[in-house]
């Protein structure tokens, strides 16, 4: 009997801890969510001010304001286009490279592999400055291209693909060759369909990396027509008048599409994150 009681107490404590931790942790998000519906002067009204919980003050006004003040749709479209392209072309380019490294004989294969492993360590920041100048001189500031192309090839993702393809039994590919498939067709129709885990992981990680990319657009983009959301939020912040409610509304709008994708593809997100840790 006492044993049962003890385990129940532990369970209770555990749940309480988790729930309180979660509650505290989510405060910023709730703050943003609630704040996006409140009139601007109520946003900073203290946590105990009853006024803010009165529903009749809530409205979609802030959201309307956002759309009126800036071209939000444009920013969203920009982010989607840029991130989408980086993810898609990244998958193609990095998967192909990972496969060629894992399966084909060619001169310099081992050397290339070593170099790619070395490149993984170079942070984006170490190349940002020269790239900025070079691409500016070429007149590529304020374009989609300059926000997409530099991020397509990624040494880390190549290694993720490489490790994964190594783990596939090569009999499958040999069977395909015997069945008359060329290396390209084997790659497209046999290998890739059986690589869903790594494709998902890389897609998700690549998406996360690119969606929040701030430094690069900061350097390369001043025209709001090609400005992505990650940059837009900070320029919106500096756009007078400073209205907290509108800012929160912007944040909610910005995060909504990603949140939906995340909730739907939760499993893949988690897997992607875990995969990145396994390589180490």
């Amino acid at each position: 009997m006492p044993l049962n009681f003890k385990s129940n107490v532990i369970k209770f404590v555990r749940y309480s801890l988790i729930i309180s931790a979660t509650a505290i942790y989510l405060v910023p998000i709730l703050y943003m969510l609630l704040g996006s519906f409140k009139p601007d002067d109520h946003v900073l009204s203290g946590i105990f001010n009853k006024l803010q919980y009165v529903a009749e003050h809530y409205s979609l006004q802030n959201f309307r304001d956002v759309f009126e003040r800036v071209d939000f749709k444009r920013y969203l479209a920009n982010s989607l286009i840029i991130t989408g392209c980086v993810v898609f072309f990244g998958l193609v380019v990095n998967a192909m490279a990972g496969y060629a490294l894992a399966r084909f004989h060619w001169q310099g294969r081992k050397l290339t592999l070593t170099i790619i492993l070395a490149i993984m360590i170079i942070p984006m920041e170490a190349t940002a400055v020269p790239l900025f100048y070079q691409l500016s001189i070429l007149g590529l500031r304020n374009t989609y291209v300059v926000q997409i192309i530099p991020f397509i090839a990624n040494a880390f993702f190549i290694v993720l693909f490489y490790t994964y393809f190594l783990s596939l039994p090569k009999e499958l590919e040999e069977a395909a060759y015997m069945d008359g498939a060329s290396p390209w067709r084997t790659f497209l129709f046999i290998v890739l369909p059986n690589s869903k885990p790594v494709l998902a992981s890389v897609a998700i990680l690549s998406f996360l990396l690119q969606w929040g990319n701030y430094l690069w657009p900061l350097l390369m983009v001043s025209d709001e027509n090609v400005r992505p959301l990650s940059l837009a939020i900070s320029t919106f912040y500096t756009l007078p008048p400073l209205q907290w409610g509108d800012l929160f509304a912007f944040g909610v709008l910005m995060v909504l599409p990603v949140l939906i994708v995340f909730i739907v593809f939760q499993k893949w997100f988690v897997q992607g994150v875990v995969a990145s840790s396994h390589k180490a």
Partner: protein
Amino acid sequence: MIQTLLPKHLVKTRTSVLMMIPAILLLIVFVGEPFILSIILSLTNLRLGSPLPMEFVGLQQYYEIFSDQAFQRAIVNNGIFALCVVPIQTVLALSLALLLNQKMYGRAMFRMLFFMPVIFPLSLVAVIWIIIFAPNPEGLFNDSLNALTLGHWQARDFLHNEYFALPAIMLTSIWQGVGFQMIVFLAALQAIPHQLYEAASIDGAKTWQQFWHITLPQLRYTVAYVVILTTILAFRLFDQVQIMTQGGPSNASTTIMFETVKSAFAQQQVAKAAAMTVVLFVIVLSLTGLQQKISKKVRI
């Protein structure tokens, strides 16, 4: 290792080349070349808009940046940031992962909730926390502290206070990063075979002992990975600084990358900025090397 390759004669060299070329070209152009250029530039005195011609000055730039007060402060800040954020975030993430590592209702939901901030762009997180740190007494942070101290808290402007600026950024970063680490730890915890715990409890080990003798050792690699990764990210800190404090007040929250960007664009000091990024790279390289060493040492 060679066993995993397909027989040589089955695939023409042309196919291999075609598959590799896009990645190789892109990596050379956008990673390899700029990186080498960075190193070269750091050995010059290039300043855009200067009437003087560019010349090679050896390690001059490095002497200069290391004697620059702002850059010195930046390195210190990055170091403090790493020393504070890494342990706190890791312990929090591990604790949360341990709490969640049970068959329980809604585990997936809690997992998702904690992971949410990770998918928020850092710039958004920065803006949200600017509002939270609002200087008036009604600002969320001020008000909460006031409530906690039962009315004895004086409202402050955290982000413009030389003592609170960096900690404020730390809190922001911890909040955003815990979810990511937690997921990694959770996966690692779940990979520990159940039988180990069962054997231990048969051997008479209590919960705390099991944690110490089984859980922690099994997590060694994961902890090493997470710690090093977070440390590396700590040195690359930029977004929050740019948006929340602009490195101030008076360099109280400046970082290596912030100084780099400042040098490159506000001051047009290309060579100086290049030297700073090389320093950053060396730091990152050392940390990565350290992780490799630790991983090898741990493998008994």
